[in-house]
């Protein structure tokens, strides 16, 4: 496969960004939207072609004779050489030095991500053409800027997923962070948007610190940043994952297996490296306790939330763990941490989502919870074994499930967010209290939103059902406790999503204020909703087991409706039941206006408060950052600098001055005094010298 197309996939959004960023203000606003959207459309087509080629062309570059999918480095150029290559006398490279390369790695997950990103991004571009206008169809101020940022984000996200090495990933990781910052703060005159963007950037920056240190440790021990080398470890009892020279694989394996590798606080350094890298993922994917930025990030325009904070960027953490999965698999304690963090976050976010008023916040917490599902799914993945119920668990089932869920979740969550955007655009408020009973006014939005809710709740045959079911199956395969836990969370998910649905579209009749009647939005906004709803209906049937697995080895045989065939019906029934119970409870409580919710709330006031206030995490962070770091660290340091360090420097000057004044009496102006000092000086000089030398 020649590299033109991959280069274009990255270059077109970048070029669009530069074009709109630099020349945007010289073009008409609408024009910018057209340029941005069509550029994204081209990228979409190219990505589809690339992904299609990867999965279905049968090219030996991409698939081995045994049917295993391979990693293919389409191109890779040195961007920054840290340490030079070691060259022997014959001019052969003995050992590659550390270098950041920029390249294009095509394998199953990156191909899948290309599809996800470009699809969602294109939908969001299209949608924004309608959303970023007022009711008279006039583009908002900063329309060009908006599309420039969207292009920048698409570029960064695409760069992230196709990274050939961990440092390239880090680079684009930072870039998506920055574009997220810019987009959250798009309405920069709003102080809340400004502070939300700042919070998002800083929290993820903090997580990136861990990521960076993790990279440093990893690269020091393994001597490479490249994924192909890092993740090529042959694990006991398994086939080699990817075709890399045996020497490299052996080397990296030995590093991980090395019992001499130093322990730090009871864990091997490699575990620490992976945990620190995972910390980066926690930041981006808003895992507890680094989740606090995501709800605030909803200050950005809703399409942005759909693109960045639901579908693509926030799953980067999952993608990162998946990318390094073979390494994680060798340090299962790191995977345990992933599991625990994911499970706790999933429950937490689900509980909080039940008690939010702002519809975007509900969706945000739901996103957190769903990403946590993916994390848990990765965390429970182990090599093949027999589970507690006696079933044979496929190796890497959880991995596949996680990726699957990532895919389906991107679709239905984007759908939900875009639907929410349509509602907000129509109503002009984020709160469901201002909505209620909208089903008659906005039918398209209503139906697509319902499909999204069904998908996320995991009702057969919508996309979420399949992916969630696989995740639960994987959980059962690993640990019953986590499986039950996650099943409960799944039920909770169904509950809060339908709570939201009913509160928006039912509850009571909508009160129309003035002449403004809510109505469905123009085609640019409804079309993406319909497309995404359609995808949400069918995405569950994509045979992920064939396409995306952790070692490229297909889990199931060929065939298209394999997902249905391979369901573990025990689990599926349980999860379906739980989901339906959740929906029914929600229906009971919120379909018609009734006092039940109020009663529930007053029955458990403490629980409601904690959930409503997100368990006071923001307050805790406020306390730590403002009261401790700002007031107790920064301010004292600044004070110390001005008064102690600088004061010392100044005091040299003052003391010199004082001394100067103190000795001025020496120059008394009287001759006799002068002579006296003179003689005394001579005598003292003589006496002291005598004492010293004689």
């Amino acid at each position, binding site marked *: 496969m020649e590299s033109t197309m991959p280069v274009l996939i990255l270059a077109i959004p970048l070029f669009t960004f530069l074009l709109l960023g630099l020349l945007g203000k010289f073009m008409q606003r609408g024009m910018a939207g057209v340029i941005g959207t069509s550029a994204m459309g081209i990228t979409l087509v190219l990505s589809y072609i690339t992904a299609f080629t990867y999965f279905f062309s049968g090219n030996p570059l991409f698939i081995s004779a045994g049917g295993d999918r391979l990693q293919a480095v389409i191109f890779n150029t040195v961007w920054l050489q840290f340490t030079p290559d070691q060259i022997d006398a014959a001019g052969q490279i003995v050992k590659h030095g550390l270098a950041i390369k920029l390249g294009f790695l095509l394998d199953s997950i990156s191909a899948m991500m290309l599809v996800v990103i470009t699809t969602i991004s294109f939908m969001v571009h299209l949608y924004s053409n309608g959303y970023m206008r007022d009711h008279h169809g006039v583009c908002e101020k900063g329309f060009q800027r908006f599309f420039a940022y969207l292009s920048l984000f698409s570029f960064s996200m695409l760069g992230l997923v196709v990274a050939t090495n961990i440092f390239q990933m880090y680079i684009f990781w930072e870039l998506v962070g920055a574009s997220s910052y810019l987009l959250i703060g798009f309405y920069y005159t709003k102080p809340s948007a400004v502070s939300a963007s700042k919070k998002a950037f800083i929290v993820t920056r903090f997580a990136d610190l861990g990521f960076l240190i993790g990279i440093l440790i990893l690269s020091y021990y393994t001597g490479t940043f490249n994924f192909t080398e890092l993740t090529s470890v042959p694990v006991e009892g398994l086939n080699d994952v990817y075709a890399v020279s045996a020497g490299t694989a052996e080397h990296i394996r030995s590093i991980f297996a090395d019992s001499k590798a130093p322990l730090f606080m009871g864990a091997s350094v490699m575990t620490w490296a992976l945990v620190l890298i995972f910390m980066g993922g926690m930041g981006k994917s808003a895992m507890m306790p680094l989740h606090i930025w995501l709800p605030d990030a909803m200050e950005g325009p809703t399409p942005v939330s759909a693109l960045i904070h639901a579908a693509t960027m926030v799953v980067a953490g999952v993608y990162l763990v998946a990318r390094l999965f073979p390494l994680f698999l060798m340090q299962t304690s790191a995977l345990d941490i992933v599991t625990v963090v994911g499970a706790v976050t999933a429950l937490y976010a689900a509980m909080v989502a039940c008690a939010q008023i702002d519809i975007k916040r509900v969706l945000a917490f739901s996103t957190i919870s769903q990403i946590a599902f993916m994390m848990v799914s990765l965390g429970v993945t182990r090599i093949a074994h027999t589970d507690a119920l006696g079933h044979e668990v496929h190796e890497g089932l959880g991995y596949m499930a996680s990726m699957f869920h990532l895919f389906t979740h991107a679709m239905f969550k984007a759908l939900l967010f875009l639907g929410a955007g349509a509602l907000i655009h129509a109503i002009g408020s984020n709160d469901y209290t201002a909505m209620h009973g909208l089903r008659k006014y906005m039918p398209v939005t209503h139906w697509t939103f319902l499909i999204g809710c069904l998908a996320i709740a995991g009702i057969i045959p919508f996309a979420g059902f399949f992916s969630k079911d696989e995740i639960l199956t994987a959980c059962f395969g690993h640990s019953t406790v986590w499986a039950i836990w996650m099943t409960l969370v799944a039920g909770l998910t169904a509950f809060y999503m339908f709570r939201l649905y009913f509160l928006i579209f039912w509850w009571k009749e909508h009160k129309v204020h003035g002449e403004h009647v809510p109505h469905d939005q123009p085609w640019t906004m409804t079309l993406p909703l319909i497309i995404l709803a359609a995808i949400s209906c069918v995405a569950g049937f994509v045979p992920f087991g064939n396409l995306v697995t952790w070692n490229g080895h297909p889990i199931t045989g060929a065939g298209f409706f394999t997902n249905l065939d391979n369901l573990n019906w025990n689990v599926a029934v349980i999860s379906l039941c739980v989901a339906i119970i959740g929906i029914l409870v929600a229906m009971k409580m919120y379909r018609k206006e009734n006092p039940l919710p109020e009663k529930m709330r007053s029955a458990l006031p403490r629980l409601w408060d904690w959930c409503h206030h997100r368990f006071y995490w923001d307050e805790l962070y406020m306390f730590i950052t403002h009261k401790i770091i700002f007031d107790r660290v920064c301010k004292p340091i600044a004070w110390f600098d001005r008064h102690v360090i600088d004061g010392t420097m100044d005091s040299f000057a003052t003391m010199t001055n004082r001394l100067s004044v103190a000795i*001025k009496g020496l*120059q*008394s*102006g*009287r*001759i*006799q005094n002068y*002579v*006296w000092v003179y*003689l005394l000086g001579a005598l003292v000089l003589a006496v002291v010298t005598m004492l010293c030398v004689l």
Partner: protein
Amino acid sequence: MEKTMLCYLIPSLIMFCCGVYGFITRKNMIAILISLELMLNSVDINFVVFNRFLFPGSMEGMFFTLFAIAIAAAETALAIAIIINVFRSVKNVDVEEVSKMKF
């Protein structure tokens, strides 16, 4: 011989000290000038005595003394002239009076 030399040196030392004391304590500039002469003369005595008792073979000390006396005379003349000048401007020869410039 040592003793004899000391007989001259000790008065010379006393002269020097008197000169210093006088310089430091007297208020009248003329008195200060006289004290200075005392000091210079004690130096002269020293030279002569050292020459006479320690190095009788040469005359260096003697000659030095002669020149020193001449120089002292010049100094005195100049000093008197300047003191007169000062007297003209402050109508006084009190050394305390001429301490306007200080610190």
